């Protein structure tokens, strides 16, 4: 269809226009890392008797002995060739580390987002159907509760209750029970790989493992999603076209879902996109608490020890994902809202 073509075209144009922003992120992170007072060479030259010489060796290895503009030029050149440098911390190529860890983060974030959407949208709709009622107030209260607890606290509490006390949840040590056999890697998303391999038991194990961390993250973002759903649902319920729908006697379900909700979801798509990108970067603490081998905790560790390459790589990755998510949102929006393509 023409509209989809136009949407894609627009998305493409938008991608090109966000390239400067990506470049800005690249340079900014580079400089930011150099401003950090920690010297990675000193930190990693940690053996006893490691003296000036060792530090110099590491500094040379990291290319930190060159003047800053040269370093930047080399870095940009390397990034251009897809080389994100090496992590001192893991001793691996950053690109490899990120590639291994990204699916874990994405899987977690997407599941969390899904949980959040599945609970936030009905809650928001419920609240909007009877604004000012007890239901409405309870929804607002419940959602606000979620935002009030820092994720690391809710995470630890969930572990304490569901793993330690009740034993419902599997041990919170990463993506899969350590004794389980991994499915052949296809997508990197365990719950998909298990399905592809037809291993339902494994799938269940992976899904159980995913539950608590995803829930922890979801609790934190239900509120903004429910709030925007409620607000836009109120707007669309009060709109003229819903009145039209009522005036011709459409069924309640059709009015609420097809007419009001589908329109109300448009802003939710946008917010969900923003929420997704922020979550991906901000789930550091959840990943830490659940020993989740994701990119954010990786970057955090690197940041604390001034390991430049992983942090730079991570930020670049996040920025790229941010751009891609924006594109996806754009495309979704274009499909969901025919008016979007006109602009």
């Amino acid at each position, binding site marked *: 269809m023409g509209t989809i073509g136009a949407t894609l075209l627009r998305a493409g144009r938008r991608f090109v226009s966000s390239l400067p922003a990506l470049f800005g992120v690249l340079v900014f992170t580079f400089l930011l890392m150099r401003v950090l007072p920690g010297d990675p060479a000193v930190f990693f030259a940690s053996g006893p008797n490691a003296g000036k010489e060792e530090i110099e060796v590491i500094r040379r290895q990291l290319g930190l002995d060159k003047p800053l503009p040269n370093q930047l030029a080399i870095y940009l050149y390397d990034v251009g060739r897809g080389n994100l440098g090496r992590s001192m911390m893991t001793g691996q190529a950053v690109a490899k580390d990120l590639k291994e860890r990204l699916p874990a983060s994405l899987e977690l974030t997407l599941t969390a987002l899904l949980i959040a959407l599945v609970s936030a949208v009905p809650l928001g709709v419920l609240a909007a159907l009877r604004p000012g009622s007890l239901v409405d107030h309870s929804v607002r209260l419940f959602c606000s509760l979620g935002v009030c607890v820092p994720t690391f606290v809710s995470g630890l509490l969930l572990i304490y209750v569901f793993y330690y006390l009740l034993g419902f949840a599997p041990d919170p040590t990463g993506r899969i029970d350590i004794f389980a056999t991994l499915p052949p890697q296809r997508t990197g998303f365990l719950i998909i790989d298990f399905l592809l391999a037809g291993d339902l038991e494994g799938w269940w194990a992976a899904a159980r493992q995913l539950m608590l961390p995803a829930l922890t993250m979801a609790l934190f973002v239900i509120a903004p999603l429910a709030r925007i759903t409620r607000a836009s649902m109120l707007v669309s319920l009060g709109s003229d076209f819903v009145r039209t729908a009522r*005036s011709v006697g459409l069924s309640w379900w059709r009015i609420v879902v097809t007419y009001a909700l589908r329109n109300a979801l448009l802003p939710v798509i946008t917010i969900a996109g923003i929420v997704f990108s922020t979550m991906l970067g901000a789930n550091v603490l959840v990943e830490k608490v659940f020993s989740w081998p994701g990119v954010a905790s990786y970057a955090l560790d690197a940041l604390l020890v001034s390991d430049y390459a992983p942090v730079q790589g991570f930020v670049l990755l996040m920025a790229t994902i941010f751009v891609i998510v924006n594109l996806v949102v754009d495309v979704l929006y274009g499909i969901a809202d025919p*008016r979007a393509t006109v602009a």
Partner: protein
Amino acid sequence: MSGPLLEVDDLRVTFSTRRGPVEAVRGVSLSLEPGEMLGLVGESGSGKSVTGFAITHLLDNAGRITDGRIRFKGQDITRAGSADLRSLHGAAMAMIFQNPRAALNPIRTVGQQVADAILAHRRISRSEALDEALKLLRAVQIRDPERRMSAYPHELSGGMCQRVMIAVAISCNPSLLIADEPTTGLDVTTQKVVMDLLAHIAAERGMATILITHDLGLAARYCRRVVVMEQGRLVEEAEPLTLFHRPQHPYTKRLVAASPTATSRIEDLVPDGEPIPLVEVTELPPPPHGTPLLLDVKTIAKRFDDGTLGVADFSMTMRGGESVGLVGESGSGKSTTSRMICRLIDPSEGEILFDGQAIGQIPARDFHASELRKDIQIVFQDPNDSLNPRYTAFDCIAHPLLRLLNMRAGDALRRRVEECADRVGLPRELLQRFPHQLSGGQKARVGIARAIACRPRLLVLDEPTAALDVSVQAVVLQLLNRLRREDNLAFLFVSHDLNVVRMMCDRTIVLRTGVIVEQGESRALFANPQTEYTRELVDAVPHIAPPVALAPA
């Protein structure tokens, strides 16, 4: 079927609001025969829509029918349950709303929306419903209906949307159609086409129709019977001709007088209004020879950033105290032109001379500092958004005085503001109010007071009364007319209501897609249009005349 289709008996509707209950409809009784078209007229807020919503059970949650009875086809539906309502809605009675674009679901194709309405009442498959929908689109005379089936509302013009809306409403052949201001917001020309279609369909299908409108001319043109509402009550019911020529109720009299017609004069608009010293419009003293033109616009054009050409090759002249009208359909460039002349936006080409000085070259960005800023002032279209919500009326009027005349806060300023308020007939006690605490007419007065506070020489009026009720419009027009005479103001009057322009302006310029199509002395121009376009415009204006459309065939 025997007996009336709809009988409303002493209907009362109350809204519970923050400030307690508000009775919006207070005892309305009316009846409607099958196939009849009834006009329901009245000013804004008189309860027309609420009556319509009450009959169709579409009131907001806050509204309740507190008393009275509604009988439809002999059956009491006052307290109909939700199951009854579903079969009632659409199948038995349907409604058409004011803003057609907003009344259609923006993210669903129009074909589907019509089909949805059909499916709500008939057990047929979706594809059958779509076929049916196509037929309906054809019936409402949409060009190229196959293609339009998969169009979204935003891809259609306002008139087309209204046709779709009509198709939705008639999809299940209701016996009662309530059209709530179906053509407000549409162009004069489109308005006529849509109304003709509606009347035609209603007649063809034998649907009874209630036409809610505040335009007496419109009601007169299409209805056999008109009821007039004021503050929730029916005050008069009559045949249109009777109503217009021999109105009984004082309110109706005022309403009729205020409605501009092809022959009315400003002085006639407000029969019992404040007496205004009559000065003949045509007897303006001829300007002494040699005085420079007040305004000399030389072939200005405006090209927007996105490439659209808003106005092309526009030239005009004005003398001091002269009044020039600018008419044209929506989007024809009226506002763009007036803003350029006001120096709020920069023309892309051309020159503007004011009082002999070239002001076209001063960028709009810097014009606020110009000596001439206070000589050219503007009154905006929508009084609702032309006042800063955080300024009181006093602040609004004082603003140009403070900025342009460098007056200081104090007694002198207060006196000057009060004087302005007096001149526009704004009670002094309203000066401390905020815009949201003022009525539309009052807001319009504040806007005018602000514009004349600095005693400008040229006043640009961009549809100053478009958002006002006829009676308020009448007062405002009269007020403007008086001010003009008193101060020898020149007016550039933008409007799409030809009757108003004819009354207000010595000369008229007709614009279409940014180009002047015709100009000349107002009366002559309207009496004898030279171009097809102007003729269409003139013809489309509803006149009070015998209802031709429904003349027995």
